[in-house]
């Protein structure tokens, strides 16, 4: 009989919702109770420094190219010693979707995501962060990594003295 089945269906549903009324709500009451996000949570972006204190970013534009919403812009320049850097570096957090693709694309680990999520504001222009706002005094994740120690040949160290780098081989010594 369909009428018995339908009535049972309705009553069962009502019973289920009745039980729900007395459960503790799952909602976290945000401003009073703040969740501590996991360390790898993707929120505000920072530019980190290498262990020696130099800027990691080499202004390679890879993050800018990877960004799906095009919110990273910068200019590249070169110091006298040949080390590349960004004279200005800008992230528009009003556009950023916190996808983390920039951090993934970065070859120098300069651009990194942090778990700090509370920086919304009513003034949308103040969400455009300049390099001074982004740069931190620290290495963030992977504190030992120093891009120039691996690849900065001729800039920070002569050939053969980089990390995991074998000394240059004298070709002639290989000849028979």
């Amino acid at each position, binding site marked *: 009989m369909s009428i018995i089945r339908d009535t049972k269906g*309705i009553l069962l*549903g*009502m019973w289920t*919702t009745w039980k*729900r*009324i*007395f459960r*503790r*709500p*799952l909602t976290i009451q945000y401003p009073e109770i703040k969740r501590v996000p996991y360390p790898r949570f993707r929120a505000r972006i920072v530019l980190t420094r290498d262990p020696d204190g130099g800027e990691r970013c080499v202004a390679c534009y890879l993050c800018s190219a990877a960004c799906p919403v095009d919110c990273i812009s910068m200019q590249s320049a070169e110091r006298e010693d040949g080390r590349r850097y960004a004279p200005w570096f800008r992230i528009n957090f009003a556009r950023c979707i916190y996808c983390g693709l920039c951090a993934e694309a970065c070859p120098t680990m300069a651009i990194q995501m942090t778990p700090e999520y509370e920086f919304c504001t009513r003034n949308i222009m103040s969400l455009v962060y300049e390099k001074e706002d982004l740069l931190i005094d620290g290495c963030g994740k992977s504190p030992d990594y120093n891009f120039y120690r691996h690849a900065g040949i001729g800039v920070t160290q002569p050939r053969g003295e980089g990390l995991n780098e074998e000394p240059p081989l004298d070709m002639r010594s290989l000849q028979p």
Partner: protein
Amino acid sequence: MSYDLIDIALAFGKIAVIFMVILLLAAYLVLAERVLLGRIQERFGPNRVGPFGLLQPIADGIKMLVKEDVKPAGADKWLFYLAPAMAAIPAIMIVSLIPFGAPLTFFGRPVGMQVVDLNVGLLLFIGFSSIAVYGVALGGWASNSKYSLLGSVRGLAQLISYEITMGLSLVPVVMLARSFQLSEIVDAQKTGWFILYQPIAFLIFLISIVAECRRIPFDIPEAEGELVAGFHTEYSGLRFGLFFVGEYINIIALGGLAATFFLGGWHGPLLPPVLWFLIKALAFAFLFIWLRGTLPRLRYDQLMHFCWKVLTPVALLNILATGWFILLVGKG
């Protein structure tokens, strides 16, 4: 019959008090609904404005008052302005028919706990609820929007259909109470509530009033998923507020009427009558909210099918059975 000043003052005082109480109840019913729906979905609902969100209705009211009142281009101006009132006024008028307590005595005169006690009270209730259709119909039509029009066409068909089952389900009540007067219907239930004699009529009436209030599972005139907000899509600000408040007053009024017709009105042991009435009426309001938190929306054809092919025949058979019963047993 002659009136003096005290009579008139009492009458006006009564109306003012009832009006205020009903508006307050409606405002807090909105809050109760939001909180309860929240609980059903394991969230809190509004709890920010004031302690436990108790000032939320006031905040909402202020918001509605100061919002811009938009009239869509091509709308029929006067009907567009008229429709919300047409929806809200019948609901308030229905409240005036409900007896919600035993008569009390003020200044040495009996004061009935009811605004008007007409000998055609029940019919007047049906009349008002059939007038409420115009708010839906004109509001949707005058907005000059296809969603609104669809909503109001659906609303018209639904409300007319369920009015019939509502009327038919009340016939056994009249037969048992032998009166159209609401106070006499209440008095007839002093010994036994009509729900005991007429469970089927009660069920049909309950289903019909849910449909009359256009609430889930019968909310196809304002189905959010397909019609934005149905007949009041184009309304904003105070006019939307009128529709909204009208809906909640309607819930309270129809809940109170269901209590009056089937649950013995304000009769009850121990507690004072007014409290009993409020408990019963608000229990219906709670049921409405609970239903909304549970059931999905019916499809239009299911709705019509259910009304005309299930409820109407059952209601007619119920009337017939009641008639035979009264004839044979000779009750009353």
